[in-house]
């Protein structure tokens, strides 16, 4: 039975907790605290350690879903969580002050997950504001990280079907790159 460990990354308010909640088939382990930065992102609570959920794909492939806290003061958790993951769904909210900057920041921060697994990018809240287009995200990706094969989607983290498609796209991407010997050695947790 294959197992995957996938990390959901991206800034606060991108929809990581919501995505994991919608995908998980077990009760999600959540570590929420009241958000005292509502002037920055207007949501009541924020993740301060991790989110954890699980989903089975193809009947017997267990996928462990971990979510990071999005703020840099929790970067010590990023180091802990990135060690055990083998792929990343990077969610970026279109209504962030600099969504393209956030995308390139998190991609750089978690770049090792591309090297030993794969990355898919989901642009969220694209229906809320007229942020950068998918083409602009892709161009920025090619400019900052030429040659990387990273699919970019718009996605609604509240929509389970959409999130499942993003997750399956990532798993197929990882398995293909694995089959073609394109990955570096997996780090152990």
């Amino acid at each position, binding site marked *: 039975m294959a197992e995957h460990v996938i990390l959901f990354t991206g800034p606060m308010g991108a929809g990581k907790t919501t995505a994991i909640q919608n995908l998980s088939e077990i009760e999600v382990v959540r570590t929420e*605290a009241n958000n*005292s930065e*509502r002037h920055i992102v207007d949501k009541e609570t924020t993740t301060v*350690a*991790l989110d954890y959920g699980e989903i089975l794909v193809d009947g017997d492939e267990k996928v462990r879903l971990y979510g990071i*806290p999005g703020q840099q*003061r*929790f970067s*010590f958790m990023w180091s802990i969580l990135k060690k055990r993951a083998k792929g990343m769904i990077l969610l970026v909210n279109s209504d962030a002050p600099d969504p393209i900057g956030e995308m390139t920041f998190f991609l750089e921060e978690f770049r090792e997950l591309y090297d030993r697994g794969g990355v898919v990018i989901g642009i969220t809240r694209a229906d809320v504001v007229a942020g950068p287009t998918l083409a602009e995200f892709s161009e920025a990706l090619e400019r900052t990280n030429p040659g990387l094969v990273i699919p970019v989607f718009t996605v609604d983290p509240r929509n389970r079907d959409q999130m499942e498609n993003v997750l399956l796209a990532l798993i197929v991407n990882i398995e293909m790159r694995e089959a073609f010997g394109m990955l570096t050695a997996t780090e152990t947790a």
Partner: protein
Amino acid sequence: MSPGLHTKPAVVKAASTLLAEMQEASSSLTYAALLTDDGFDVARLPGETDGTRFAGMASSMQALGDAVTHELKIGASEYLIIASGKGHVVQLRVPGQELVLSALFDNDATVGHALAVTRTFAQKMADLLLT
């Protein structure tokens, strides 16, 4: 929307004073920090240290403790203790507030003493915030 307690000068001042009193009450106290539930440093001892990273860590620990007690269905988490060869960290939530007090004691203090001191000062902080 109300801003976090770390942004309120009166709270920061009261927290700093409280930590100084805590050190007077226990010579074994070597580090202490008050932080918000969502990981912002409010005050720390010694005061000149950068508490940003520790505040994030302590709030994560607090939330993980809560997640564990929830998972095991054993009610609310009351305190956390990390014991090491050079001392012990005692951490608990300030009653009724979105604040956490985390304190490091050297091994001259028993865990019981460390817990009693930390509890007392967490309650004092709660009382101060109510006045």
